[in-house]
C-alpha cells in the first residue's frame, strides 16, 4: 500500500514538472551557463590543464543547481496549499519523504545526464571511459546524499517566512563534507592518472554520510512536515 502511494506521489511530481518543464529547464540552463562562466573565470595562465579543478567545478554546479530544484519542489506545494491536503490523507510521512526525495533525485539526475558529458567535453577531454562506471556510482551516491539532506531541510525551510533564502544557509554547511568527498573523487576519476584507492575511501564516506541522513530523515520527518 505504501509502495503504491509512493509511486503515485512520484508520478504526480514528475507529471506536474513535465507539463511545465519549468524547473528542469531552469536547472539545465543554470548548469550550462555556470560552465561557461567557469571557463572564463578559471582561465589558467599559459593554457594549462584545468583538470585539477574539474571535480570541484562539477559539484559546485550540481549543488547549486540542486538548490534551485529543491526550492521549487516545495514552493509549488506551499503556494497551492497542496501540502495540507496531502497531510490529511492517511499516508505515512516517511512515504511522503521518500517520494519527494525521489522526485528531487530524478530532477538532479536528469540535469546531470545532460550536463556531465558536456562538462567532460569542455574541461576533461583526457578522461578515460573505463572510469565511467565508477564515476556514475559516485555521482549516484552523492546525489542520494544531496537529495536526502536537501529534501529534509527544504521541508523545514519551506514552512518558514524566509523560504528559499533559508535553505542555502542551512543546507550548504551540511553539504560541504559531501561536496569535498565527491569533488576530490571526481577530480581523480576525470584526470589521466590518479590514486583510485583514495576514491574508494571517498565513496565509503559518502555512503556513510548518506546513511546518517537517511536515518535522521526517517526519524524526524513526521515532525519536519508538521504532522
Amino acid at each position, binding site marked *: 500500500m505504501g509502495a503504491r502511494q509512493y509511486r503515485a506521489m512520484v508520478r504526480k511530481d514528475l507529471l506536474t514538472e513535465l507539463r511545465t518543464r519549468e524547473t528542469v529547464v531552469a536547472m539545465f540552463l543554470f548548469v550550462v551557463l555556470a560552465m561557461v562562466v567557469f571557463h572564463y573565470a578559471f582561465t589558467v595562465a599559459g593554457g594549462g590543464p584545468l583538470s585539477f579543478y574539474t571535480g570541484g567545478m562539477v559539484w559546485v554546479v550540481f549543488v547549486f543547481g540542486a538548490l534551485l530544484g529543491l526550492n521549487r519542489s516545495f514552493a509549488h506545494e506551499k503556494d497551492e496549499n497542496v501540502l495540507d491536503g496531502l497531510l490529511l490523507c492517511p499516508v505515512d510521512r516517511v512515504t511522503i519523504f521518500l517520494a519527494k526525495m525521489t522526485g528531487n533525485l530524478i530532477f538532479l539526475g536528469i540535469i546531470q545526464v545532460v550536463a556531465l558529458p558536456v562538462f567532460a567535453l569542455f574541461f576533461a577531454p583526457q578522461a578515460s571511459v573505463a572510469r565511467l562506471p565508477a564515476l556514475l556510482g559516485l555521482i549516484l551516491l552523492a546525489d542520494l546524499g544531496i537529495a536526502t539532506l536537501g529534501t529534509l531541510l527544504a521541508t523545514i525551510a519551506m514552512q518558514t517566512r*524566509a523560504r528559499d533564502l533559508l535553505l542555502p544557509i542551512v543546507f550548504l554547511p551540511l553539504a560541504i563534507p559531501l561536496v569535498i568527498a565527491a569533488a576530490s573523487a571526481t577530480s581523480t576519476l576525470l584526470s589521466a592518472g590518479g590514486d583510485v584507492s583514495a576514491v574508494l575511501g571517498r565513496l565509503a564516506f559518502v555512503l556513510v554520510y548518506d546513511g546518517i541522513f537517511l536515518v*535522521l530523515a526517517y526519524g524526524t520527518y513526521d515532525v*519536519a512536515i508538521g504532522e
Partner: protein
Amino acid sequence: MVESAATVAGGRVSDRTALAPATTTAILALAGVLLAAALAVGFWVAPTDASTLGFSQKIFYFHAPIAETALLAYGVAFVAAVLYLRRGDARYDRLGVAAVRLGLLFSLLVMVTGVIWGRAAWGVWWAWEPRLTTFLIACLLYSGYFVLRGAVEDESRRATYAALFAVIAFVDVPITFFATRFLPEGLHPVVLGPSGSGMDARDLLAFLAGLAGMTLLFVGLLRLELGIEALREELRELKYRLEG
C-alpha cells in the same frame, strides 16, 4: 543574583526560583581559578616547545579547551533538542538556545585564537587546515540556527524547527572533532593521538586544567543565560497579571 518571585509580589506570582545565584558565582569563580592555574602551569612550569611552533605553542592551553567546550555546547544543544522533541517542555528550547549561543561564542574564540596562532606558527593569517576550516563551517552552520528561529513566528513551531535543526546540525560535531585526527594536513599538531598524549606531562596538566576551567565557565555562563530566561518568564507573567 535572582530572587524568588514570591518574595517580590506577595506570593501571588508563582514561586519560580531561578537558578541559585550563589552556585553560579561559585562555579564561575572556580572556573577562573582553574584557568589561572592552567596559565600558571603552562607558562612557568611547562617547558617551551621544541618543535617549530616554539613559544607560540603556549596558545594551546586555552585554544584546545575552548574548541572542546564549543563542541560540548553543541552536544548540550543536541540533547536539549531531543528532549524538547519528545516532551515539548519549553525549558528545553531555552536551554537549546542558550547552548547554541554559547557554542557560537566559543567557536568564534577558537577561530580568533586559531588565526593568531596560525600567524605566529606558520606566518599566514589563514590556512585551509582542518581545525580552522571545520570550525568556520560550524560557525556558519549554527548561525543558521538563529536565522531559522528568526524566520518562524509561531513560538511552538519555532522551537520545534530549531530543535530539529539542532539535531541535524549535530552531525557536523563528530566530523569537526575528528578532522584534525584523520585529515592529513600536516600543519596542525595532533594532540591526543591513539598512542596516548604525545605531550609533556606538564603541558598535559595545563591543558587539563584549562579544559576543566573552560567547561566550568561554560556551565556557569549557561546558568546565567537560563537565569535570564527565567527572569524573562517572570516578567512576562507579571505583565500578564497586571493587564489581566
